[in-house]
């Protein structure tokens, strides 16, 4: 790339697990909480930004351009343009890439880019049949006509809402639930239930270790804290990711029933990412902006890649997006110091590793001469991932870029890859350098 793209700082809210009811914060509340604290501690005044870009997979109907809502509420002022991007699970990586593109063309110098979703607040909707019923009821003019339509009301329809999030987690083209695409990968690469549960237990253990060491909530190695505390108006404080469980051991996870392919499948709620609310932001800057505002960047984004693949195998997106970057930079899997592969499903992360190590897959699908080999597990998701933290869809892309920087700095590493699988058959990856 011609122009260097700097990451000045980044912050996120704690990721708050959905407890089967609307969570304490609207998506914009979360974006505002993280964004205002981030801008406060940086040398960037909100009004100095050239634009705000926010990824969100499922904005609420009352804040559809949530990027603009968040920018105004953060106090960026009327004149800072703001918009919302959507690339499903990578919306929060797309926002960064859109910022990169605008910095590269010189349109912007300083960009606040991030992601958010409050999945706990995904709506319940009426079915098409109920909507038709309402339409007829409204159309009926006479009391008798209304009574007639009323009698046609089916209580079963009335009390069976469409759960929007289940629709969102179903691929509209191939008709598979995301968990079923993970089952596909497990079957294809022979990944067992035990391997999935072990990997998931590791994710929980890693997050707990990171929490206990304060790696997520305290400044370290020249970086400000990754998580900023969030308060609701009742005075409740949220300062840690709350989906992680110390009792999520492989033994306990083995007890859960398969969720997507019922009874005979392998993918459970325990070895999948959690449904969660959260937001994350980074401040991106051009070289000129770094100089003008005397910024101290903590990282650079060296390269980005997007890739498409079969929606029924969407979990391999990271393989398809990362491999071209590795090729361009002449790197092997283990030439990097750290990897973040978003943990949509344990089977999907393990599927990626298996694909890179699979001669036929690498030759046929990636156009390589042979397998890339085994990725060193000690470099992968070293502080756990979405299985333990949750996957607030729009926020995850930003989180893994931000956390990769934290992981690199702590490990004293220099370069790393953040990559993510995307529902609908896509993958995204960014090559990051810590400064």
């Amino acid at each position, binding site marked *: 790339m011609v122009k260097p793209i700097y990451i000045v700082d980044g912050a996120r809210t704690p990721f708050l697990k959905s407890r089967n009811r609307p969570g304490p914060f609207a998506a914009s509340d979360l974006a505002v909480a993280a964004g*205002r*604290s981030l801008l*406060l501690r940086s040398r960037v005044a909100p009004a100095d930004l050239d634009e705000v870009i926010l990824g969100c997979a499922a904005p609420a109907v009352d804040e559809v351009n949530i990027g603009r809502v968040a920018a105004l*509420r953060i*106090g960026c002022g009327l004149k800072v343009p703001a918009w919302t991007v959507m690339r499903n699970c990578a919306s929060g990586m797309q926002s960064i890439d859109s910022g990169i593109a605008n910095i590269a063309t010189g349109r912007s110098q300083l960009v606040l880019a991030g992601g958010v979703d409050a999945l706990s607040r995904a709506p319940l909707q009426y079915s098409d049949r109920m909507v038709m019923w309402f339409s007829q009821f409204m159309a009926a003019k006479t009391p008798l006509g209304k009574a007639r339509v009323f009698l046609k009301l089916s209580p079963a329809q009335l009390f069976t809402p469409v759960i929007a999030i289940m629709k969102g987690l179903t691929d509209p083209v191939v008709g598979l639930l995301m968990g079923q695409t993970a089952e596909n990968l497990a079957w294809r690469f022979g990944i067992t239930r035990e391997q999935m549960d072990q990997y998931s237990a590791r994710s929980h253990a890693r997050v707990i270790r990171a929490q206990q060491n304060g790696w997520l909530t305290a400044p370290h190695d020249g970086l400000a804290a990754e998580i900023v505390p969030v*308060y609701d*108006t*009742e*005075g409740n*404080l949220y300062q840690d990711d709350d989906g992680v469980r110390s009792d999520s051991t492989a033994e306990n996870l083995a007890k859960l029933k398969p969720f997507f392919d019922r009874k005979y499948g392998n993918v459970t709620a325990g070895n999948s990412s959690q449904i969660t609310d959260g937001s994350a932001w980074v401040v991106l800057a051009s070289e000129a902006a770094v100089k003008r505002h005397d910024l101290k960047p903590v990282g650079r984004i060296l390269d980005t890649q997007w890739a498409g693949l079969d929606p029924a195998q969407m979990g391999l997106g990271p393989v398809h997006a990362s491999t071209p970057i590795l090729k361009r930079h002449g790197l092997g899997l283990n030439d990097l110091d750290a990897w973040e592969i978003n943990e949509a499903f344990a089977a999907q992360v393990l599927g990626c590793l298996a694909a890179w190590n699979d001669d036929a897959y690498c030759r046929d699908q990636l156009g390589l001469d042979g397998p890339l080999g085994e990725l060193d597990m000690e470099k992968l998701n070293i502080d756990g991932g979405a299985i333990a933290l949750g996957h607030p869809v729009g926020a995850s892309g930003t989180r893994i870029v931000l956390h990769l920087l934290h992981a690199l700095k702590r490990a004293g590493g220099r370069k790393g890859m953040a990559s993510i699988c995307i529902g609908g058959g896509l993958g995204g990856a960014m090559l990051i350098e810590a400064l």
Partner: protein
Amino acid sequence: MTAKHWKLDTDRDNIVWLSVDKADSSTNTLSADVVAEFSAILDEMRSPKPRALIIRSGKRSGFVAGADIEEFTRISSTQEALAIVRRGWDVMNKLAAMPFPTLALISGYCMGGGLELALACRYRIAVDQPGTRFALPEVMLGILPGWGGVMRLPRVVGPSAALDMMLTGRSVDARRARLMGLVDASVPERIMENSARMMALEAPARHRLALLQSLTNTPLLRPLVASMARKQLAARARREHYPAPYAIVDLWQKYDGDPFAPPAGDPASMATLVEGETARNLIRIFRLQERMKSLGKESDFEARHVHVIGAGVMGSDIAAWCAMRGLTVTLQDQNAKALAPAMKRAGALFKRRLRDKRRIRDASDRLIPDVAGDGVRRADVIIEAIFENLEIKRALFAKLHAAAKPGAILATNTSSLKLADIGTALADPSRLVGIHFFNPVAQMQLVEIVSGANTDGQAAKDAAAFVRQIDKLPLHAKDSPGFLVNRVLGPYLDQALRLVDQGMAPETIDAAMTQFGMPMGPIELADTVGLDICMHAGQALAGGNAEPPKRLAHLVTAGSLGKKSGRGYYTWRDGKAQKGAAGAVTEELIQRLIAPYLKEAQAVVAEGIVADADLADAGLIFGTGFAPFTGGPLRYLSAKTAPR
């Protein structure tokens, strides 16, 4: 005719749009010449008649703020006062009798005489914006609405709502005004002219009261409503202290609001009110309040970002208040957990005061938790509100001084430490100033601006401008123990607490002082402030050599700190002191209790802690609630010693 203060336009529908725009003034008030012109304009309109008359303001700031208080304060005789009442009463009656539709289009404040003018119109339309407020605040000046308000408001909104507005002086916003029927419509600014034009042309039937409400305005039921109102009044204020609200009830019940109907000497007559001490004192306090407001105009300092350190009750309430007033606020304490109660208090304040969910959200968005103290280098005002420890404050200010941006105000909310002592650690202590708030912040209007020996005069002026920006009343005070308010309260509380030691019941002491006119007795006040704070402040004032009152020391040792711990001199339940029966209150007891207060107030003026006796009176009324009808402690003293 050519008018100086009014502008006439006749549109193609032959509607006259009459704008009031008082010359050489930022505010529309109904001074003598404004009223005279208005009267002449109305006379000319009798022929040829317009189709309708729409009265509006030519100023963005508001509709009409009321009569000209300045005029009222200059009057030297009862006759002059009655002349002012007469000309307003007559012109409003003339307006009400116009033989075509009349309509008041109201945006911004509509107070006193302004509301009486609107009430004399056939229709009223309010522009729904935050600044639109309706009130009849005359009672707060010890007088009554003499331009037809007492007659017309009960007819428009019903006696119960009308008495509530007139007896409290409270204002209502556009939406509330619409709900209670005070206005016929509440519309957004963008369609205000259209609404006024259409209503004037349509000339719908006049708004009418619901049956029950109109019944209560009949001679038969008025005595019942009036006696209920008097009963409620008696619980709040005594007639000998505050005659005006009682006069309003009388005037409505017996004379249908006509200020010229009561015979001479009747307590409901305007003459009796303006001849009384209370009105004179309350009007003086109003002017002193204006004087305190003008202290904020000596600098054009404008804060956008306030950083508050210390999220205790004071710090968090200061932060929440500033956020509510539109400032960006960062609130710092040692860890995230320490900020949680502050966020809760702020959330409750915003809900209570702002009500509208978007305004609540915006205020919450402006209040930013800031454990790391990142706000320091962005802030225009930094307010320290941590616990009273000199060494820690010194160290803190040394750090703040280095990090703050040039020109920022460095302020301490200390109540017992000397500014000069805190400032010793600073290379340049000239920007260090005391900005001393009182608890509860949302209710207490007074804020003391304390200048130390090294404080730059400009810094104190900037601080006063900031205090005005957040809609509080600034008062400059010298850096001496207790400043003004605590210095005067100290000996008063001390004496009261020692009387308890001698066996007097707290209830009797408190009853004596509420009878005197204090909003709260000294013992209950001590419990409310917190006994630990009282003891600490008392020791700081006494220089540490005096023995504290025995029972106080005992209670503090036992951890019974008053309201906040549920037990102090009183037991507290649901935020209320559980009181037994009070003993007999004698005038001698009252004088004995108030004596230390008065003595200290004199000393404060003699020592030049505040600029003059007037400001001491105002400060003590707004800072301690000293019985306002007395005009303040020094005024009270001079009235007592110099017979009229």
